[in-house]
């Protein structure tokens, strides 16, 4: 045994020594080197033809022009085409691959065929019809203002008791309040590019508000005064941050308005308003403690009056919800006092994008205004991440055994409440357009084309609704019809992708116009509508009081809060931004 063990040791030793004279160890070294460089689980970069094509980012109302660089037709990057792009835009092409992306229809959380949903909704529709009840069939559009939204309204008009619901939105609240003061059917938009001083009350102007990248570019061109109780990003980058007491927004606005009137700095157009006297009386009641020194407030009022054009925006914060109506009214009124309504650099009137006349549909209803328990069936259209809305608000409105279905990009948003969910095609999977941003002073029409095939189960909400109404209506078709209507109007001009010059619409034929739009072209229509005077200082019936603002339910407009997992770079791997809705970690950079 001893000798055999010794033999074994000798054999092992000899083998070890001999091995180094064979190629084996050297090959092993080389192979280990290659192996550590090409692990099988490392993703392979795509191979294929490199192309680039202009389109628009329709992830938010900004609708920025982008150049999609693709490999084998799949976009590998969206890069700015002429105008700047925001962080979310740079990773917009990831939405189709988002880990939370819904790829198959689900019923009560388990996979199911999408066809069932159509049947279920149709059955529900029949039931409502048979009972002739007061229940309605409603579409809740979480991305209102698109061409698809118009089609929803049109299709709902063909269904008995059809209702089109919009969620309460905070973005553009001041623009809407100002619009209400203008005579006629004119929409106001904040002309940020030409403004000189902007007082932002709680509005996240530096955090995805308006057209984020264009706001960023404009930021240093005007003086930004930001009033907010907490140090938000807007407070960070503002030229001046007013740390006001929480809930004192109305008092702040009223205080500035009062100083303007006291010192006679208000605009003549405000004095001409019929409710000027009533406003002055209301103002006296509304002034209150803001936490700012009176001198500072006075300085601010004087600056606003001196550094014209100056505007005030008080849309509210996505984290804390919209401001109370009186705050919005006060903001609108302050804009009138500053002479910022109807003028360049302030809230300028904006033309509406034409739509075919036959598209008249059901009116827009605010979801709050609906009667409780009146919805028999609800279809939620949630094509993008970032929508949020308190479900209790919707739940109240649902009938006892109401059916809730959704057409959604994922099953994690508002749509997670639905019994049936169908995957919706997302950005870059379908032709779509975008509504105008609150800082877009020109009417414009831009679309994004389909680059990728949607998942086989995917149906967009418009197609689904059309099937229920027994019609054929694809969003692409609707966009083409709308383009035709724009072309027919003869208004505005088209800038083809890559061109500097804009061509009048009349110089193109309809097909060429449509093709150019699909190829990344942009239609714009700006018409000087100067001389629009506000009809009132604040909307009829609105009061100004400094009652503490009620804790609003958290509602946001639609914003792509988390388009790409890469945005984790901003939320968790840097201290730049807090995750939406999360409190700021506090402190400075590492």
């Amino acid at each position, binding site marked *: 045994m001893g000798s055999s063990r*010794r033999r074994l040791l000798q054999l092992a030793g000899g083998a070890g020594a001999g091995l180094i004279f064979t190629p084996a160890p050297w090959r092993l*070294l080389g192979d*280990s*080197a290659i192996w*550590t460089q090409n692990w099988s689980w490392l993703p392979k970069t795509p191979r294929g033809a490199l192309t680039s094509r202009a389109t628009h980012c329709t992830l938010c109302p900004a609708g920025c022009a982008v150049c999609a660089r693709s490999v084998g037709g799949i976009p590998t990057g969206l890069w700015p085409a002429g105008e700047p792009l925001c962080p979310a835009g740079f990773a917009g092409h990831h939405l189709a691959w988002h880990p939370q992306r819904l790829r198959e229809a689900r019923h009560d959380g388990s996979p199911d065929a999408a066809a069932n949903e159509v049947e279920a909704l149709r059955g529900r529709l029949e039931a409502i019809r048979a009972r002739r009840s007061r229940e309605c069939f409603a579409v809740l559009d979480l991305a209102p203002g698109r061409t698809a939204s118009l089609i929803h309204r049109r299709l709902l008009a063909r269904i008995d008791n059809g209702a089109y619901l919009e969620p309460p939105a905070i973005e553009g609240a001041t623009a809407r309040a100002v619009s209400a003061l203008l005579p006629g059917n004119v929409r106001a938009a904040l002309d940020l590019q030409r403004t000189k001083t902007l007082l932002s009350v709680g509005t996240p102007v530096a955090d995805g508000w308006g057209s984020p990248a264009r706001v960023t570019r404009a930021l240093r061109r005007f003086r930004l005064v930001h009033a907010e109780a907490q140090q938000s990003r807007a407070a960070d980058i503002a030229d001046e941050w007013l740390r006001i007491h929480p809930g004192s927004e109305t008092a702040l606005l009223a205080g500035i308005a009062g100083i303007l009137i006291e010192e006679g700095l208000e605009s003549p157009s405000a004095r001409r308003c019929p409710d000027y006297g009533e406003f002055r009386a209301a103002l006296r009641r509304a002034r209150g403690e803001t936490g700012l020194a009176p001198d500072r407030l006075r300085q601010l009022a004087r600056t606003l009056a001196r550094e014209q054009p100056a505007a005030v925006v008080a849309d509210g914060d996505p984290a804390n919800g919209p401001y109370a109506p009186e705050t919005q009214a006060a903001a609108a009124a302050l804009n009138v006092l500053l002479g910022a309504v109807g003028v360049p650099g302030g809230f300028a009137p904006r033309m509406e994008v034409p739509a075919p006349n036959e598209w008249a549909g059901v009116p827009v209803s605010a979801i709050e205004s609906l009667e409780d328990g009146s919805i028999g069936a609800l279809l939620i259209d949630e094509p993008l991440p970032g929508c949020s809305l308190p479900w209790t608000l919707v739940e109240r409105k649902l009938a006892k055994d109401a059916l809730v279905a959704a057409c959604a990009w994922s099953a994690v948003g508002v749509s997670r409440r639905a019994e049936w969910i169908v995957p919706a095609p997302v950005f870059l999977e379908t032709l779509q357009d975008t509504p105008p941003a609150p800082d877009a002073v020109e009417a414009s029409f831009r679309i994004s084309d389909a680059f990728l095939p949607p998942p086989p189960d995917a149906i967009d909400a418009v197609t689904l609704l059309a099937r229920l109404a027994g019609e054929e209506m694809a969003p692409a078709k609707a966009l083409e019809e709308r383009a035709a209507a724009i072309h027919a109007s003869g208004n505005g001009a088209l800038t083809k992708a890559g061109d500097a010059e804009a061509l009048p619409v009349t110089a193109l034929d309809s097909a060429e116009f449509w093709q150019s739009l699909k190829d990344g072209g942009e239609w714009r229509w700006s018409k000087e509508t100067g001389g629009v005077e506000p009809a009132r200082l604040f909307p009829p019936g609105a009061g100004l009081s400094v009652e503490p603002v009620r804790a609003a339910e958290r509602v946001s407009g639609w914003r792509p809060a988390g388009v790409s997992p890469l945005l984790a770079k901003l939320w968790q791997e840097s201290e730049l931004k807090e995750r939406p809705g999360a409190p700021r970690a506090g402190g*400075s*950079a*590492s």
Partner: protein
Amino acid sequence: MTTALTPSMLLQRERELIRRGVDRCPLPQFLMWTAPWFALLVFGCYAAWLCLSQGLFHTNMDNQYAFGLWIFLDLAVIALGAGAFFTGFLLYVARKQEMKAVINSAVVIGLVCYSGAVAVLMVDVGQPLRAWFTFWHPNVHSMLTEVTFCITAYLTVLLIEYLPVALKNRKLCRVTRYAVFEYELHRLMVVFALLGAFLSFFHQGSLGGLYGVLRGRPFAFREGFGIWPSTFFLFIVSAAAVGPSFIALTTWITEKLSGHRLVEGRVYDTLARISGKILLVYVALKAADTLVWMNATAPARGFAARGFYETQPFGTWILLAEIGVFGLLPGWLLVSRRARASRAVLLCGAALACAGVALNRFVMTIQTLALPTLPFERPAQYWPSWQEAGTFLAVIAFGVLVYSFSFRYLTLFPQERELAFGGEKE
């Protein structure tokens, strides 16, 4: 040999592996002693496996604290393992015959320290399979290249030095081939002692140079001579200083644990005297280096030395402790004949010296990385994860086990047998 192996036969067989004339506890008792260390080793290997198979996110290191517990461990362990090269140097080159009593033990300690350090380094690097790239694409300007080359070569030297010790096992030495090989190898040990001293000299220094060249880390950056910053020399001297102390300490611990006298008293005395003298030289050099650094090197780069000690817990106390409590004090305890006459004082001095060098390596690794460089940075925080601690403990357990087994089956202390014969004096 056809009978089945009974437990008592097994014990007998095991006993035959132990050298005659020395007393070792029975196998079950020995296994009881090793069991917790084995458990620790297994746990640590699991922790290391997590890091190797999934990635270093299992550690709490980050892009600012890119080195952590492991590098500190490597530096400390390699400094303490310097006893191997220094004892070899003293015995074979300086002809200090007393060192014969501890040379085998020193070799095993060196082997344990270096192999442990290399093992943990392999876990610490992100791509251990590419470790040989350093030999393939060496950047000769990098201190780490010097370290890698020297440590690899020195680990080989230690393995060769360990061979005669291992071949002297009671069973192995009966094999004529091994015995002859061992005899001849032992005769040429002076070559390896010289090589070891040369390699150790360079890599102990390069480990210091590792930090000294970091111009991006003003706390560590030092001017130097030629291509070597002053930390290069400080590390060599400090390692040489604590090597004998650590040998004395481990010998004493082994004596206590085994319950036998292993070396003559004067061995302790010699070790302590040498350690103390070098330690005092080191303290003087360190103090001079600190003064130059505070008054010239750091200010020239826009950093006030005061600022380095404003980050808690790295206050000025750490510098004072390093030079005073863990430098001057043990230096004096070890050098003073009166003080080291007491074994307890001598061992205290040795322990303080060892702790001092560990503290120095800690400061160079951890404090260097904690301190901000950019003016707006905040000091970085770091606390090792359990995986890091586990791997750390595995290396300790590995060391204890290798040493325990070597002590049981090999002749680590040649005097033990003599002393067992009644303390016969040479």
